[in-house]
């Protein structure tokens, strides 16, 4: 038992209080620094999208909005972006369909050879991109296939499938089997149960997997570089122009992608929060 004293506690000094505050918020300060670290190059890229740079965007030469008014001003930058978007879209659709099918097979059925399938899903994720890219190119060369748009999409679908399977499988595994049983109990046959219960409940997982696929595909450079032949994607364009200076228009596109993605995510969150509030 402590004895209570009536003497007032000594007033903590200012430095004392500051160091206490610091100790209590150490982890928040650390996290804030980590975020600054993450965003320095993003901010730099954004800032230099306003540089009146001319051809090589290395040194700050003055503020201009010209790059934003005319993002396709630099030669080939927009065709590269168009290629990337097209590849990203097609690869995402294919990988999401194929990966989701595998995830359902793994999550909902018993069959022989499950461990082989699991290994085949895991291996592409555990293989460095150089090896994936080099091996595909070796095969294409062997079969005398010229690299191009098709080979890029083939490669992107291949490395996205595993990520889709893992994401969707996790969602299926977290599904309460009683929900599907309840649907069957309420006169839904297997097809209807899948359509009205299973699929809608797994949908957020599928959407997340598609988003992941798109960003992996859109940002991929190494595998693409091996299998693209003369086709330029946006990352390849940046890499190639790195030697002679990247046009400020590339910064405009990079920054726009960043803000578009951020807006989509934030608006999505606001909408879902609104929905909840409204009903309550």
């Amino acid at each position, binding site marked *: 038992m402590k004895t209570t004293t009536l003497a007032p506690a000594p007033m903590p000094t200012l430095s004392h209080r500051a160091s206490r505050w610091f100790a209590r918020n150490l*982890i928040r300060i*650390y996290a804030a620094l*980590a*975020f600054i*670290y*993450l*965003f*320095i*190059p*993003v901010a*730099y*890229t954004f800032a*230099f999208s306003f540089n009146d740079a001319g051809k090589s965007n290395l040194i700050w030469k003055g503020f201009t909005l010209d790059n934003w008014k005319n993002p396709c001003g630099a030669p080939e930058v927009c065709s590269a972006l168009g290629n990337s978007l097209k590849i990203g879209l097609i690869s995402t659709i294919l990988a999401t369909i194929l990966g989701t*099918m*595998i995830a*359902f*097979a793994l999550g*909902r*059925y*018993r*069959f022989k050879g499950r461990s082989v399938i699991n290994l*085949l*899903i895991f*291996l592409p994720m*555990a*293989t*460095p*991109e*150089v*090896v*994936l890219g*080099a*091996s595909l190119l*070796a*095969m294409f*060369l*062997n079969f005398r296939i010229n690299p191009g748009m098709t080979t890029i999409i083939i*490669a992107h*679908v*291949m490395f996205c*499938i595993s990520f889709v*399977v893992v994401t969707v499988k996790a969602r299926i595994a977290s599904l309460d*089997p*009683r929900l599907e049983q309840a649907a*069957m109990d309420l006169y839904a046959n297997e097809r209807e149960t899948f359509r009205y219960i299973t699929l809608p409940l797994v949908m957020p997982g599928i959407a997340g997997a598609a988003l992941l696929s798109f*960003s992996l595909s859109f940002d991929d*450079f*190494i595998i693409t570089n*091996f299998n693209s032949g003369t086709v330029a994607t946006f*990352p390849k364009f*940046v*890499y190639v122009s*790195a030697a002679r200076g*990247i046009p400020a228009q590339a910064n405009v596109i*990079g920054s726009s*992608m*960043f803000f*578009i993605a951020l807006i989509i995510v*934030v608006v999505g*969150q606001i909408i879902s929060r609104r929905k909840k509030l409204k009903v309550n």
Partner: protein
Amino acid sequence: MAFLHATTHASAPAIDNAAKKRSLTPYLLLLPGMVWLIGFFVLPIATLASTSTMTRPEGAAVGTYVQSLRFQNYLDAFSANKDQFLRSFIYAGIATLLALAIAYPLAYMIAFKAGKMRSFLLVLVVAPFFTSFLLRTIAWTQILGDEGPVVSFLKALPFFSNDIRLTSTPFAVVSGLTYNFLPFMTLPLYASLERIDPRTLEAAGDLYANGLTTFRRVTVPLSMPGVVAGTLLTFIPAAGDYVNAYLLGNPNTRMIGNVIDSRFFAIVDYPTAAALSFTLMAAILILVTLYIRKSGTDELV
């Protein structure tokens, strides 16, 4: 309570009847995806294996190779590039540890201290992804460049010599690797930390563990799956990367990825490139297997 909840869930009736019946459906579902993976992953790896033992016949054109089962290729390729191999693993290893050191507190803060900001902060972790990673890496080359703000600042300080540089150094390459794969470390860490019931941490406190002991004995073991997944997702791509070494390094920081790339494109020496790729893949798979065994987690598979 949490324990009880987990138990009831575990004892929930097993999957419905349809799942238990053997049918063709799973095979049909697997077929297209597996055809894709076999055609464009397994087959290429096999081609790579076969290419790795080819030789160029005397007098044949550049890029023409025939199979001659020359396993000596592996020894030749390895002994000529063992520095780059070693460097790749050391750089990737250091970058992984740095990323873990940066990401763990970050993930911990988002999981336990962020309150309503949680999902927003999580978005912020992923957000840099959407600016092309090449643009961000090039941004680093300019920020850390000889004319850049960091070097100018360091030069102004008394304890650095005037010819200090940050780019074209191993430091820059490792920083670039750390930076680029940081989200791959943070997300799995967050996922496993977020699953920890804060009440288990309170219970540890209740049972006379201080903050540090709680962290060491409860938090860390419970977040192990995230640590394993995060370190693998960082180490594997980092070990095979060549973009950071190319943009931020010098000829003495070349990693194995740079060698494979140049063997393929600049020198058109497919067998050596294939042998190196295959060796890299085998080395990483062995490391990964040992690591997963040792940490006792197979959640990733």
